[in-house]
């Protein structure tokens, strides 16, 4: 089973993300693999361990994306493709999907696994568009995956009201929820092996794409500005006699917060 996993290198959300002049400040930031993409890698590796085949990880982005790809190789992926072209910068979901579709088409594949969304933009657009471009069936927000034979997946996907159980014939695209699995760590074994694994760096031209189709120029969605989230006001702590405190809190809830209004 050959699996393609597109991954995105995102700012570590544990950091204080600052906005300067409507843009995200990049200094002092460190980057990680977007969390749901790690689940996607893990799912791909588990399928490979069961049915054999190859896992190819793909990332579109500047130099730092290579680090994320190396991590994925260390986790156990077999090959990596890095599309590193300044013209691809500021692509929208559609642009990224176009690039990823070209990469996927370079070789035969049975399955594409993505994260359900990227941890930085939370858009969740690239995966579905990619499936459409390739004419693949897609199952989103997968929380359970079983596969007795390589041609079929049995999936549970999480909806608003419950779970949907789906049987899926390959080729297809699925998107991982973080409760799907526990991503493995890059082990010493993996790090050693990763040094010898291929990491192809491609330009848009290598994929037969022109700079106008993607990037800022080809984007249909344009980001106007970033704004920092509003800070939540500090909580209040009440101490003293239980009855008195209760009365005070009730009073504040009713008259100040007006939650009963």
């Amino acid at each position, binding site marked *: 089973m050959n699996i393609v996993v597109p991954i995105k290198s995102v700012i570590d959300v544990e950091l204080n993300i600052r906005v300067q002049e409507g843009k995200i400040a990049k200094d002092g930031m460190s980057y*990680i693999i977007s969390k749901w993409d790690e689940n996607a890698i893990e799912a791909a590796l588990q399928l490979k361990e069961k049915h054999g085949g190859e896992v190819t990880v793909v990332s579109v982005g500047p130099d730092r994306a290579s680090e994320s790809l190396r991590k994925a190789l260390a986790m156990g992926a077999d090959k990596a493709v890095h599309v590193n072209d300044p013209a691809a910068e500021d692509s929208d979901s559609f642009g990224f999907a176009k690039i990823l579709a070209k990469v996927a088409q370079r070789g035969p594949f049975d399955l594409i696994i993505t994260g359900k969304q990227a941890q930085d933009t939370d858009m969740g657009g690239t995966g579905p568009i990619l499936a459409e471009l390739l004419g693949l069936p897609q199952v989103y927000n997968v929380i359970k995956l079983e596969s007795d034979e390589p041609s079929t997946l049995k999936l549970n996907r999480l909806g608003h009201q419950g779970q949907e159980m789906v049987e899926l014939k390959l080729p297809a695209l699925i998107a991982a929820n973080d409760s799907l699995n526990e991503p493995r760590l890059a082990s010493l074994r993996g790090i050693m092996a990763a040094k010898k694994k291929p990491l192809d760096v491609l330009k848009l031209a290598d994929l037969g794409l022109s700079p106008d189709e993607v990037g800022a120029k080809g984007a249909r969605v344009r980001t106007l500005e970033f704004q920092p989230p509003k800070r939540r006001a500090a909580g209040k702590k009440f101490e003293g006699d239980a009855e008195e405190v209760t009365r005070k809190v009730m009073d504040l809830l009713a008259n100040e917060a007006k939650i009963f209004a």
Partner: protein
Amino acid sequence: MNPILMTLALAAALTVFTYSVALRLGALMRLRPEHRLDRPWQRLGVLLKVGFGQSRLIGREHERSSGAMHFFIFWGFVILGLREIIVFGEAFSKGFQELLPLLGSDSVGGYLYTLVYNVFEAIVLCMVVFALYRRIGLRPQRLDLNIVGNVILFLIIGVVGTDLLYDAAKFNLIGLYGYSIHHLSHPVFGTEMAWAPFARLLAWLMAGWGEGMMLFLYQFCFWGHILVILVFLNLLPATKHMHILTALPNVFLATSPEGYPHTPIPLLNVEDEKAWEEGKLGIDRLEHLTWKQGLDLYTCTECGRCYDICPTYVTGKPLTLKWFNDSLHDHLREEEGRLLRTGHTDESRQLVGDVIGHDTLWACTTCRACEEVCPVTIEHVPRIIGMRQAQTLMHEAQPEELNNTFRGLERNGNPWGLGYDKRADWAKGLDIPILTEPPAEDVDVVMWVGCMGAFDARSQKIAQATGKLLQKAGVKFAILGTAEKCTGDLARRSGNEMLYQMLARENVETLNTLKVRKIVTQCPHCLNSLSNEYPQLEGRYEVFHHSQYLARLVEEGRLTLDPQLEGTVTFHDPCYLGRYNREYDAPRALLARSSRSMPVEMRRSRNESFCCGAGGARMWMEEKIGTRVNEERVRQAYEVGATTIATACPFCMTMISDGVTQSGREGVQVLDIAEIVLQSLRETREPA
């Protein structure tokens, strides 16, 4: 006596003995190399104190009776060793003793020696009877009351008893029946009979038994003695009583002698692909032990002192060190032949899984209490860490709770994975400078905050208190801000040497670039890494624990204290400050100057302190088995009526605080030594 018979007996016994010892020595030489002859004078000192002085046997208060017993049996063996030469020589040459320097008839030494060995024979006899009573009557929990132990004791009775009877029979033959048997005799010193009170007493008791009986006993006890000795000698290498042969060498070869810092964990070459491919990173099979670790196993006598000092045993975990050693020891004895022949051990048997349980290996808090009490200085903790290295680096079999911790360390240099850019937030508003450029000459000392001090809400208060005290004392100091990372202690203790080295190398680079020389830290784990382990990576600094630094400031009069702490206070020794870095007094000195009443000591304190349960990366693993270590420690503090439990480690702080909360007891506070000092600080008035 018959020299031919003696020659045959000796030849047979020594052949078997030599084979038996050579087999084990040969097996040990197949194990990994290790250099153990550095610092010879220090080693000799430890040998005298721990070996000949038996300090760990008689030095511990609640073990004193059995300790004294062992002390006398040990010295009995040393003294009777010479006696054996005399007895064996007698078979080859009548009056053999005359040939020995200073022991013949003309020398007072011979008579004194007779007195000493005779008295010691009586003492050893009493001690062995006491030992039998302990094993059969008292049955202390830490002992495994197997039959071999009793057989050995009876053999000792045999050795000493036959010699006493032999002497007594000889005295009667000479005195009552006029036989001319060689004995010491001198116009001034008298005969040896006058110097052997217990043999003489026995002779007097046997006086009426007749000449024939005495002749029989004289012959029988001589050969009986020889037989028992030779059987005893050959039993040693085949049983746990091998310690009689190996204990003294083992003490001399110990790596962490008393009062000195422990040798750090050896720096693994994690990039060595060959070692990796051959499965040789860490200790995965018995053959990966060093020869000294093998000698440790042969030397373990299963006395069980490590077992009832161990916090995991006390709280019902599967790690009971005695059985841990015993399992490895049995495995070694099964494999010694193969090891000697091939240099390898059974590949189908993994040390962890087949010989030692997984939970057993991961239960250890690396507190090192076991190493502190082991009478033969067995080094348990480095072996456990070696085994964890194989588990983590090669099998990826670390407890899964650690995965997130490792990920956090890798990404943000702290175990929670919190944004590294928030590392200096604790110091906001305190006006503490951040060192960003060399040289560090403008500062006296760099304050190493550690992850707990930087991120953990409770421990931030300790860091803040320390910072404030340094400011009050006018110390010029700075922090590294967001450039500091976890020292890697927890990664190293959980066997993740790769992650440890990554973090440690980054820290060393930061510190060396800034030309930092002196460091003060309020975390004993950081203290240990920075001062004892970073020199392996060319990071050499003078590192102080905050208790040491503050005690010095108080000593120099730069901080003046006015005792404010009320109630009963007791100090909980952090393992990594006490046992790892031998600092017991500085925090106590600060406490004594801050508390209105005399601080009290818990039953387990100083080098026998009871771990809080957080060390060895246990802080980051769930404690699923048995009772909780921290709750047990808090119970011990309640035993002495503590209303304040003082400590000097942010991890201990967390564990002890949790323990107090769990206990539901009100009115007990847990404070760091810096917080206590800050409360008692007398504000210096401006000169008028």
